[in-house]
């Protein structure tokens, strides 16, 4: 029923984005890295406070260290690129954690943009997992007021998965819950 709309390439990339954890060794050219970052910064920000910072990691030794420190981070053993999505928690009013939402929207933009450029990636959670968070953040050297929300491991994929499709009707509610 919805087939016509799937011809739109952007819809195709959104539905086609899957978590890819194996990568070929080819580097990602700097122009693409810059585009991924611009797309990250294009995500909306609550009250336009823009709390986000990004750390680009391409050094093999640093990627290997992160892959070892992160208990689900094996993707960084082969990915030539990782982007750590960080939030300066002092930008929001005390107790307002909307920076989590900003960081997540930006991470998703990176992953859709990557797919559109022929790259693949996986979203690795960092915050709120222990001791993962304590092991990963010192490698990145972030100050104490900055939270590492997630790391996107990125590169040219060395595995393929079928696109997403369809929705669970149980999760859609129309005009009222139920």
């Amino acid at each position, binding site marked *: 029923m919805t087939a016509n709309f799937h011809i739109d390439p952007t819809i195709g990339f959104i539905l086609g984005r899957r978590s890819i954890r194996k990568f070929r060794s080819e580097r990602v050219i700097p122009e693409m890295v810059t585009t991924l970052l611009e797309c990250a910064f294009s995500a909306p920000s609550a009250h336009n406070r823009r709390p986000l910072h990004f750390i680009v990691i391409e050094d093999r030794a640093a990627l290997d260290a992160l892959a070892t420190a992160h208990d689900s981070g094996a993707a960084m053993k082969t990915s030539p690129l990782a982007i750590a999505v960080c939030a300066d928690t002092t930008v929001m009013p005390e107790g307002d954690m909307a920076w989590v939402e900003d960081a997540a929207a930006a991470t*998703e933009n990176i992953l859709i943009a990557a797919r559109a450029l022929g790259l693949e990636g996986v979203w690795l959670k960092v915050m709120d997992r222990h001791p993962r968070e304590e092991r990963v953040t010192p490698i990145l050297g972030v100050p104490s007021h*900055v939270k590492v929300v997630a790391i996107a491991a990125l590169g040219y994929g060395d595995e393929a998965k079928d696109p997403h499709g369809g929705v669970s009707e149980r999760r859609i509610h129309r*005009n*009222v819950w139920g």
Partner: protein
Amino acid sequence: MGIRDNGTIRAILGRRSVRRFEERPVDPEVVNVLIECASAAPSAANSRPCHFVVVTERGKLDAIAGGHPYAKMLASAPLAVVVCGEPDKSDFAARYWEEDCSAAMENLLVAAHALGLGGVWIGVRHQPGQEPRIREILGIPDRIAVLGVAVIGYGRESREPHSGIPDGTLHLEGW
């Protein structure tokens, strides 16, 4: 063709918050595609904690608009998708529903822009008093968290795409 001419990159950079809408409704098939895109966002350990309440009834749209300090535009929009999380679904959902639902929300907004619609993300979770109010309007159970509202319609304003990286926010190999 340059990287920035890629249609999807243009859709991501071109998505801006749109707050003025035409009256015409959004076709139900288009709404389904938006929800499909939202559902395609990744979730922690595939916990899939998101629910979507599609609101098209004028009275409910007006009710949501009426008591939220930043949702006045909803009174002239034909569609809202209220993005909710189910934190008690699993341990992963409890920790990460908000990140996962935010990714779903961003997919929905980028998809909307790609299909010629405009929209804006109205925050609920961190806006004092809004979560219980919206639960009541839509009959959402207390155990369900309300992330925010995607207000969607055909835009009556257009804005320049985003570009560039703000000074001081990019760090290479370490902070």
